[in-house]
């Protein structure tokens, strides 16, 4: 056996022998894009009580709730429902912020040493020990994810209390929210609502489909109303946060959010990081420094004309006020 094969084999065996089981409840961050979901997920990164999924969670189980079901009789079919096909590419190419454009030489690229083969082996081993519910399968998935991610800087610190992950748009899909709380009655949905004029100014730069005010704000409303509806339906398990509080009153907002989720307040909650490293904002605009861009909350006033500002306010101002009322007290 070559040295490389021997080491690869020893690596697998050692990891399988020393697995950190991941069974904590899931905190899912979800809302329409360009609302601060990436930022919030990066504020949980490095918190010693969190297993923090470091980029968008993209599995069919929640993304396509009507078309995908876990098959408790088959590890292979279950893995198809919870596996994330993008991970193999991220392993080879590294992680770049979602808003980075192709050819952007300035974009940070972070290593992400998650071995797809090892992840599958861990999942299979966990599944074979007995998976009797969707939650068991999801626990096996997250166990496989965080343990196959070899350079995860936050695997061993204990005790862990939560798994955190970010999945844009899911909040709009009622079956997905129902499925989330079906599997995680002890879980949370955190939904960020951004001031609609600021959101529109950012979103129209990022996605062509948001160029039209009416169309864009209809989507924004759907996301914000879905978050408020979920709050009415699932009570304390849903937390609504405004983007403006998150970036302008970060310390207060994160302390409040930590309290709602049962986490300790920790300095890590104030600095966005990717696997322990400072990361630049996932902004639609050029970003030079690291950390939170609190001075961008009013930037939309310079880029939108008066008529557009008025139109957005007319279409969405009422819902934003409801979201503010449901969020962190002033």
């Amino acid at each position, binding site marked *: 056996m070559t040295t*490389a094969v021997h080491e690869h084999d020893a690596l697998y065996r050692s990891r399988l022998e020393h697995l950190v089981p991941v069974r904590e409840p899931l905190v899912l961050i979800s809302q329409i894009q360009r609302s601060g979901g990436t930022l919030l997920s990066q504020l949980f990164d490095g918190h010693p009580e969190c297993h923090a999924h470091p980029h968008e969670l993209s599995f069919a189980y929640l993304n396509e709730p009507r078309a995908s079901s876990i098959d408790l009789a088959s590890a292979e079919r279950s893995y198809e429902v919870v596996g994330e096909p993008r991970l193999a590419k991220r*392993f080879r190419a590294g992680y770049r912020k979602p808003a980075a454009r192709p050819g952007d030489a300035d974009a940070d690229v972070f290593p992400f040493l998650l071995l797809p*083969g090892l992840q599958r082996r861990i999942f299979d081993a966990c599944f074979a020990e007995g998976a009797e519910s969707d939650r068991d399968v999801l626990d096996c998935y997250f166990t496989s994810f965080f343990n196959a991610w070899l350079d995860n800087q936050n*695997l061993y610190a204990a005790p862990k209390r939560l798994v955190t992950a970010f999945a844009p748009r899911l909040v709009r899909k009622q079956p997905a929210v129902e499925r989330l709380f079906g599997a995680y009655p002890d879980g949370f949905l955190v939904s960020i609502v951004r001031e609609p004029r600021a959101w529109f100014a950012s979103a129209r730069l990022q996605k062509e489909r948001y160029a039209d005010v009416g169309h864009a704000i209809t989507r924004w409303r759907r996301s914000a109303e879905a978050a408020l509806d979920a709050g009415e339906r699932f009570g304390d398990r849903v937390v609504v946060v405004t983007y403006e509080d998150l970036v302008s009153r970060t310390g207060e907002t994160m302390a409040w959010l930590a309290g709602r989720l049962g986490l300790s307040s920790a300095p890590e909650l104030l600095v966005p990081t990717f696997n322990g490293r400072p990361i630049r904002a996932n902004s639609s605009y050029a970003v030079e420094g690291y950390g939170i861009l609190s001075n961008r909350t009013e930037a939309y006033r310079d880029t939108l004309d008066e008529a557009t500002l008025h139109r957005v306010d007319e279409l969405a101002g009422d819902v934003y006020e409801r979201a503010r009322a449901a969020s962190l007290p002033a």
Partner: protein
Amino acid sequence: MPDLDEYEALCRVRLAHLVEVREPLVLVSQVQRSGSTLLGQLFDGHPECHAHPYEIRIGPRGRTYEWPELDLAAPGTWFESLVERKPAVHLVEGYRTSSRSTERFPFLFLPELQRRIFDRCVAERGARTEREILDCYFTSYFNAWLDNQNLYGGRKRIVVGTTPRLAMNLEHVERFFSAYPEGTLISAVRSPAGWYHSASRKYGYESVDDALAIWRRSSEATLAAAGRWGDRVVVVVYEDLVGRTEAAMERIAARIGISMTPSLVSPTFNGMLIRANSSFPVDRPGIIPERMHAHREELDAATLGRIEELAGDLYERAAAAAAA
């Protein structure tokens, strides 16, 4: 993906994103059973430290507690001269503080990757001096350790690790400072009775006088090093480390230029709580201050008297140096 492809991809990614390690070395050294394992574990997890997780053994084969001997004219020999054998064992068996310990910790370290990183580093940096070669060695070490929980975070200021006994020979200390003029030697001195109680159980010394001669040699070398290299040597009393941990670590942190953090008072291995490396049974992780005075009850009066006679003066001098 075939196993080898995945392994090669792993190596490529790691080589493309290396964390450069060039910080000065803070070496913890004195005779064994004096608290160096504890001290090393207190540095583990500090965001400003690359903390070697157990003994640094980069000396010549069979004399790994000595400073390494590098033939600067023979680059092909450098890696073999320095490479430590334990990581390959720990990859397969896990890490234990001693052969009696029931705690086993994962240690995901790829020796072949380490060699590749070292070769790449030497070639890219054009390493020629002893320090440049050691920087490449530590770069290879900390990057080949895949589940190192403290590689990316924080702005690193030092590399820290322990090499027992090295400080007992001033010639080796001199070579250490020659490679690391901005480095620091931390040397712990334990009360001679407490040390004898622990060391005799571990090593089975039959004669108090023979054992205390070793303790004296270590303590005298520590004081001599402090006299010769001044501020670059930090003398620590084991009893302060165990009994007044926070104050002792605060003082050490200030001396070596790192921030005082909560991690400095909690012994860990790669972020996981760990039990003491004691010669006696240990039932919980963390520091065990109550063992500090166990020798008073477990050694007879004659032995305690003889130890005091042989070493009491020197311990007082060490305590004074530590307090200075």
